[in-house]
């Protein structure tokens, strides 16, 4: 009896999650219409620590990489950044600060807010334009040379996590 009940509840839980997954996938697809598709721009850039990063090469790796486009001027990003910062302990994450001013200011901003993700400063929106990013925050998961997931706007920690996990 007990077992049956559990089975039923699990079944309901799974179907609920599946529905949620389908809805968010459709929403992602809709939001991602303007995004460049293939290939990932083969540009080598430098993060604010001076380390060279090539996103096209990163995408060839086994593990997924999360690319987080944000801006110091974007109020909604204040909600997404802490989640990305927390995930950066467990996943490979590259953030791109779009049009946020001098590297020193961006560095100071990251330190003051205790954000721990790698950051490429893109004051002229060059990398952003190459990727076709129109709004912030934008989250992209890349793996196997492809964009696996793409979403914009407020995204919760579990929302980011399942995209990384499934990628």
């Amino acid at each position: 009896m007990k077992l049956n009940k559990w089975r039923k509840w699990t079944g309901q839980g799974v179907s609920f999650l599946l529905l949620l997954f389908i809805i968010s996938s459709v929403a992602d697809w809709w939001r991602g219409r303007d995004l460049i598709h293939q290939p990932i721009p083969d540009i080598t850039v430098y993060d604010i620590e001076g380390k060279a990063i090539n996103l096209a090469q990163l995408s060839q790796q086994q593990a997924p990489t999360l690319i987080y486009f944000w801006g110091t001027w974007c109020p909604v990003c204040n909600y997404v950044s802490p989640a990305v910062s927390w995930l950066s302990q467990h996943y490979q994450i590259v953030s791109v600060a779009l049009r946020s001013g001098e590297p020193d200011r961006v560095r100071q901003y990251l330190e003051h807010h205790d954000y721990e993700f790698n950051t490429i400063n893109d004051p002229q929106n060059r990398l952003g334009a190459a990727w076709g990013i129109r709004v912030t925050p934008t989250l992209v998961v890349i793996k196997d040379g492809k964009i696996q997931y793409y979403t914009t706007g407020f995204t919760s920690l579990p929302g980011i996590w399942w995209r990384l996990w499934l990628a």
Partner: protein
Amino acid sequence: MKTQIFIAWCLFALASATTQAADSQWITNENHPPVKVRLSTTGQVDTSNKRVFSVLQVQLNDGWKTYWRSPGEGGVAPSIEWQHSDNLAAIDWLWPLPETFNILGINTVGYQQAVAFPLHLVAEDITQPIRLRATLTLPSCTSVCVLTDYPIILDIDPKQRKANQDSAFAYGQALSLVPQPDPQAELTQVVWHQSSQTLSLALKGRVWQQPTVFIDGAEDTHFSVLKQWQDGDQLKLIAAGKGWLSEANLTGKSLSITVADEHFAGEYHATAAQGLPFEPPAGSKLPIWLIALMGGFILNFMPCVLPVLGLKLNSIIRVPNHDQAHLRRQFLASAAGIVVSFWLIATALLLLKVSGKSIGWGIQFQQPWFLALMLLVTTIFAFNLLGWFDIQLPSRWQTRLATSGNKGYQGHFLQGMFATLLATPCSAPFLGTAVAFALAASNTSMMIIFTFLGLGMAAPWLLVAAWPQTARLLPKPGPWMGWLKYLFAFMLLATSVWIGYLLAQFISMAALVLVILCLSLLGAWLVLKRYGGRICLIVISTSLLLLGCVAFGAALTSKSWQTPLPQLTWQPLKQTNIKQLVDAGHVVFVDVTADWCITCKANKVGVLLQSPVVEQLQSNTVKLVQADWTRPAAHINDYLQQYNRYGVPFNIVYGPSAPHGIALPVILTASAVTQALQQASGLTTPDEQQSNTKPSNLEYLQAQNKGTDEIE
């Protein structure tokens, strides 16, 4: 505002020279269709200051916002990069008064829908043409943010003179909204306290109605006002300063303070000095959780909830040989139902708050679909009480309930939820204070306060759960119980009638008649099914007979009750300038009310329309102003929130001796109204006046309210 429009037009008249207007026309960026911008010169030139007047108009689609020069907790100000222009020395950007927005809990300051910025182009040589080659960078946000660039190319020849009427009008209108330096008032204290990161301000020289204060000027720092109050003739406030890149230090920094009030917007400048923060006026003596607990408890005895409480007691009496453990669990289930409903309400309010909607207690009664649902629920419950049918759970559920061994506690849980649902139109003393505090507090505090409200309302249930033996003290079951049940059924039917009356405001009479007919037919069908045709006919004819008696009785006695209460003539709040009336020596009595608010009705019938108050209100010197919150109205929400209220009834009296108003207790008394009217008109003795005018300060009033039982 009017004077400012006048000043704007005077400026125009002064600038005698006009120039060939240059116009960028509306520009959109194909990557970001929701925003349109247009920069145009008005045709006027101020040759002595080498200025060409222009206006930047911005149109945003619904939901999109752009920002003020200090965007608040996030965001960035619009900017223009013009270094590649010829014969241009500077661009002076003027900022119209902004609004405050709350996006996902972050406070930002800016504009929505449409805004126009007056821009003054300063030429190097005003006799030569200006070649403007600029890039406008405009931020806009909804749940995502976009920075969009707009190239703007204008060739302006200051010597060619032709006005652009559209632009000149837009410019004049925009300039009238730009806060002006105000010599009448001055900042007497601007104190920064480093360790608490707070700024204390005192502003003297003006009588404020409902001031909104914006602070800016310090780079990479944003401010949020924590507390604002009136101290004698000074407006005082404490604001938190938050550094964007590091801890803020404002000592020696020059700051701009913008104050917006009814029909006024002024700007003040001062340098912050290091010092101790102000001591805010003493707040509530009772802790807010205790107020919430009491508010919730008192809700039980309001007319809308009493039938449910009665039902509950009825059900205990009916079951003989109470099994104490069973009884205890039943009551705990109801208590849980109540607390959970309060959580649901809090969550719904939070969602509304996050989406930027205005919130308040009882706002669901502004929704016709909610009223319709309530009408259905109360009527069906009344039928159930009358014994016309039993509420049957689907057999599948019943099996599950039986097998899981919880003996149907869901029913008791639902009873708790139903009680809470019925309680929402009722405002109890203390409840308003707690709700007002909760709605303005952080999300966590809001949840905590609503939990205490729920616990307060669940208190009688919890008490029985703790001492089930108290149930034995209730009278023995007997035929009286059947009669009590009918009494409760009729109370619920009366509630249905009342809800139907509320619904009549939203739907047509025909639709309402249809609804009543459907419900009556449902009742008749239930009786037919249970008792057969004979009883059904008896019930129908008895009902018709009763209705007929009521109608006949009403018609016979109509003379005696038709105008039992005197009438008061109210003018709508929206079209009233309270300050003007007060300046003209009138006393203004404001009543914020709603048809669904029972306390409002009680106040009217019990106090406002009774002698001696009604005579005082009918006097020529007293102006009566009413705001009807039956349907949602943004201006009423704003008005209520200025006094830190989130629900009705709200009554306040203004007068020559009380320009800030004397807020009245939620449950009115004749003496409170009389005293406030006298005090506002300045009829009290100086001694009394001194002790009484102090409450004109809002915060002080709040504090007073919290300390007494005169709250909504």
